[in-house]
């Protein structure tokens, strides 16, 4: 694993120059921040408060440290924050309705021997998970749209707001489709073993469509997609708003 990490570092520097070091450093920093957040939650801090703080820090690190272009970074950061706050409004009731929090029957072997009455609200922890899962995709989408638009602006700084918005949606359409795929394939990857389990043990469809772990994960996936969809027009609009705050 150390060797692999070393290879990654070398590749990053080769492809991105010194910025590669920043990417690597940001990733490590994010890891430390996430673990720190978990330690805080384990230490009894309110999970939703910690999630809010976590989102703010992770968005700041992953956007500002990865993006040199100030306009791209600012637009992406503000957009992501707005979308995350809006998502909170959907996540709370949905998580309650779906009741997918905690461990499933298939996890029994893994958690054997652990005390389960640990005094943490697993409902809130599952909200934290949905938050973190959608955060990356939202930030990535808004950066991609904003950086594509800024790239266009570099060639044509006088482009009309309406035309720029249209270009944003055009870039965004493809990005939504692929961001959807990012989330979807990652879901495939993490569900490979569970699906194999379903097939080997011959789970009936009626059980699968009500399955705690599966539904929990699909829920997170769909909320992430909704977040990504909302991000595209918002990014284009905000970029128009930010690009010349004084002239127009």
């Amino acid at each position, binding site marked *: *694993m*150390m060797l*692999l990490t070393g*290879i*990654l570092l070398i590749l990053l520097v080769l*492809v*991105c120059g010194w*910025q590669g070091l*920043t*990417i690597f450093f*940001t990733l490590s920093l*994010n890891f430390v921040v996430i673990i720190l957040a978990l330690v805080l939650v384990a230490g009894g801090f309110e999970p939703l408060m910690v999630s809010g703080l976590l989102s703010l820090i992770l968005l700041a690190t*992953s956007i500002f440290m*990865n*993006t040199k272009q100030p306009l791209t970074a600012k637009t992406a950061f503000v957009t992501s924050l707005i979308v995350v706050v809006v998502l909170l409004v959907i996540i709370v009731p*949905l998580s309650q309705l*779906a*009741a997918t929090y905690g461990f499933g029957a298939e996890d029994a072997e893994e*958690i054997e021997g652990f*005390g*389960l*009455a*640990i*005094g943490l609200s*697993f*409902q809130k*922890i599952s909200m*934290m998970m949905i938050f*973190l899962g959608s*955060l990356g995709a939202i*930030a*990535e989408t808004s950066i991609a749209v904003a950086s*594509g638009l800024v*790239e266009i602006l570099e060639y*044509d700084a006088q482009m009309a707001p309406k035309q720029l918005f249209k270009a944003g949606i055009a870039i965004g*359409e493809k990005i939504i*489709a*692929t961001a*959807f*795929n*990012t*989330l*979807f*394939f*990652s879901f*495939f990857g*993490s569900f490979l*073993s569970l699906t*194999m*389990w379903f*097939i080997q043990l011959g789970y009936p469809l*009626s059980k699968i*469509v*009500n*399955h705690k772990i599966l*539904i929990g994960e*699909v*829920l997170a996936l*769909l909320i992430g997609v909704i977040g990504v*969809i909302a991000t595209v027009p918002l990014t284009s609009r905000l970029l128009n708003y930010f690009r010349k705050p004084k002239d127009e």
Partner: protein
Amino acid sequence: MVKHKRLWIGLVGSVICILGILGTYFNAGLYQQPIIRVMRVQTISREKQTDEYQNEDTEVVQRVTGQFLNTKQKGKTITLRNTYTASQAMSTRYYKGEQVFLHRDQYLKKWSLNEPKRDTIIVGLTLLTFSLLLLMMLKRGLMTLLSVLVNLVAFVLTLHLNALTGGRWLLPIMCGLAIVLTGLTLLLVLGPNRQMLVAYGATIGATFLALFLSMAVLKLTGDQGLHYETMAYELQPYKTVFLAEVVLGILGAVMDETTDISSSLQQLAIEQSNVTKAELFKSGLTIGREIIGPLVNVLFFLVMADAFPIILLYLRNGNTIAYTLSRTVTLSLTQTVISAIGITLAVPVTSLLASQLVRVRR
């Protein structure tokens, strides 16, 4: 014209969403397992408990009264006891109005509450998301949905094939699946054009380069420090399942990246007709550099989020942070590193292919 289309999609989408929600809300008759609707919930007792690590939790016993919605008992009411802990790690608290599956113990001839019915919420949300996709992207949204459905079917069929062959060919089968799924997805999302070829070549190239590189390194270091046995659901052979998971998981992200770069470059070529190949390559690298970090973060966050419950369980059961991490996230981190290698490799590969192939209008 487009506005009218959106209006119609919005209307039809809402109607389908509502139909889907109503349809699954009243579909108890389709299930063989008995379902009740909870009509009344009373808390009978609450008992505070403290475990050996000073974790305080509350054990609650509730009396749940419900009415059968299907089977021969339809219409009858039943009252059952349910015990849950306030943290709900494995137990569930039931609320009034919920629909709940029942389980009948054949030996004791007793009913017990099994788990909540979840199809209504998931069908509702799925339809809502699909409608939003269509509303936002019209034709391309349709293609995206189509690609998702095709991918899902191919995924399930391939796993059946894998089960038929006894799982011996898991990795080759999954690599084949990866090649097919990437082709299908890009074809449906981008259409049959040059950009699609660029994205396809770059995605497959970068993904397999990363896979082979990682396999070689893992072999070389003898999987040092990796606890494959800590994988969820413990399916054998661990390492093959792990690698297959990584390949599938990374694919979407690499496609995302190659499409982002090539689509931005094409947009650029359309907006700026006198751009040169070298400029395109440089722009590709610039765009790519900004995408690598966020994209690795996407996968990293998803992988880490999955590990939250188990990490917290370890921490709250009196384990040190170091031990907890070694048992819960080393594999997640390795997965992230392999993904990151693929994502990084994809940038120069895509920029090179795109700068050569994107059509520049003269």
